[in-house]
């Protein structure tokens, strides 16, 4: 077993909260996000997700919990053989919902993120920013209780980054807890009310945001 990437972290993400997870590249931001998404198991310690101990979860329970989380991956993780519409609808399809029942919902969200005219396009023909927005739309389509976004503004220009952040803030106001991993200090400064979780040397420091 190699050295520990993260150690002695103790924090909680409260419902309807908004926080940035920050730190230098390689500090373990993505690892921490994956732990919260239940796609990694910690070598020691306890992770509780929606009040359940992750170590004792059965696979079906993990699936149920993941449906309450909206992940946005740094590398988008869009399926190239599906259209943008199908990628965004994927979580609903995976839940077994009928296509006719969610079509209007998905179309509306795609229009809302500015991909109304790219619904049939497969990811390989989308620009970086379009992929980013498709990935975000996929995370939002299930109206998650917790949004985990790993560098969601890493591939877009500052203007679009700010717009996407406003989208997350809007989501937060509607009741979703939001965790955004980023090392863009300038962007974080624009949303001063947000709590900051800073990782460095495998440790975590928490800084409360300014009153909004």
């Amino acid at each position, binding site marked *: 077993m190699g050295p520990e990437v993260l150690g002695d972290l103790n924090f909680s993400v409260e419902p309807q909260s908004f926080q940035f997870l920050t730190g230098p590249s390689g500090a373990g931001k993505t690892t921490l996000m994956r732990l919260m998404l239940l796609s990694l198991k910690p070598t020691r310690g306890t992770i509780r997700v929606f009040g359940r101990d992750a170590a004792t979860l059965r696979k079906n329970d993990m699936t149920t919990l993941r449906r309450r989380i909206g992940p946005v991956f740094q590398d988008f993780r869009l399926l190239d053989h*599906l259209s943008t*519409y199908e990628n965004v609808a994927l979580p609903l399809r995976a839940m077994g919902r009928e296509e006719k029942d969610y079509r209007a919902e998905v179309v509306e969200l795609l229009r809302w993120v500015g991909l*109304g005219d790219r619904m049939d396009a497969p990811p390989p023909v989308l620009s970086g920013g379009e992929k980013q927005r498709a990935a975000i739309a996929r995370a939002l389509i299930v109206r998650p209780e917790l949004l985990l976004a790993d560098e969601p503004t890493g591939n877009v220009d500052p203007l679009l980054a700010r717009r996407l952040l406003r989208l997350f803030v809007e989501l937060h106001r509607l009741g979703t807890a939001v965790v955004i991993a980023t090392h863009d200090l300038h962007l974080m400064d624009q949303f001063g009310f947000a709590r900051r979780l800073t990782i460095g040397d495998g440790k975590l420091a928490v800084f409360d945001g300014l009153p909004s």
Partner: protein
Amino acid sequence: MNEPAVGPTAAREPETALKTNAPLIPGDSVAGRALVVVIAIMTFLACLTAGSALLVAGASKAWRSDVSRDAVIQVKPGPHDDVESLVAKAVAVAAKAPAVESAHAYSKAESEKLLEPWLGQGLDLSELPIPRLILLRLRTPGAEDLTALRKALASAVPQAALDDRRVWAARLGAMAQAIVILAAALFLLMIVAMGTAIGFATRGAMAGAREIVEVLHLVGASDAFIAGEFETHFRGLGLRGALIGGVAAAAFFGAASLLSLSWAHSPGGEEIAAMFGSFALPPSGYLALLVVCGAVTLLTGLLSRTIVMRHLQRLQ
């Protein structure tokens, strides 16, 4: 290029033109096409085996039915015997037996004609002690006890011997049964080989779709949903392969049936017809081929689902 703004847009896409519900496992791949070919060949061979077994079983039933309704009295005259009177006496004894429906004695000319294929035409056979045959038609196929007739013949015409062909019919039946068992074993072997090929293909497809499986898990798909997607994918491949193999096998039996009609009167054709009947698969035989194709399709889907489920459970 300017990025479109985030928020409601004026552009409206006709929603009915959307591509929806594309297969989550990409359909057309080299491995997929190779599996279709393997399944098609295996289904073809399995259908041939099943069809041939049905032909042999049907022909065997027909042989036994024919043979068991007949019995033969063979009269072997001595040097000083009057063969005609011996034959008449044997016919009279046979006609009295309750099991016998009718008795037809072959005349001298008919008996000599029976030997023509072996001895040739134009020979004077009058000096040879040619045995004479009396063909008996029995009332109930195979169920008669001919012991009484055998005893009556032995006392009235000692030169006559009764052959009820039961030993021969039993041998034919055993041989046909052995062929059917062999065909069933071959059929099972082919299914096992096909299952192995499907297993390899499924594992290969899973390895190729690892990224897809991971994304599906992370967006909240259950193992059963993912396995269902693989099952649909492989059932589609199985159906394609089974249809190709099944149609080819049906065409083979159709062509064989037509060919057997054209060679029916040749010496070789008669031998083949004796073994396989008319070589024409009955409608129930074609139905059996359809059942084989359906079974192959279902087997392909279920096997891949089982393999995927086991793999996903290990991932935990």
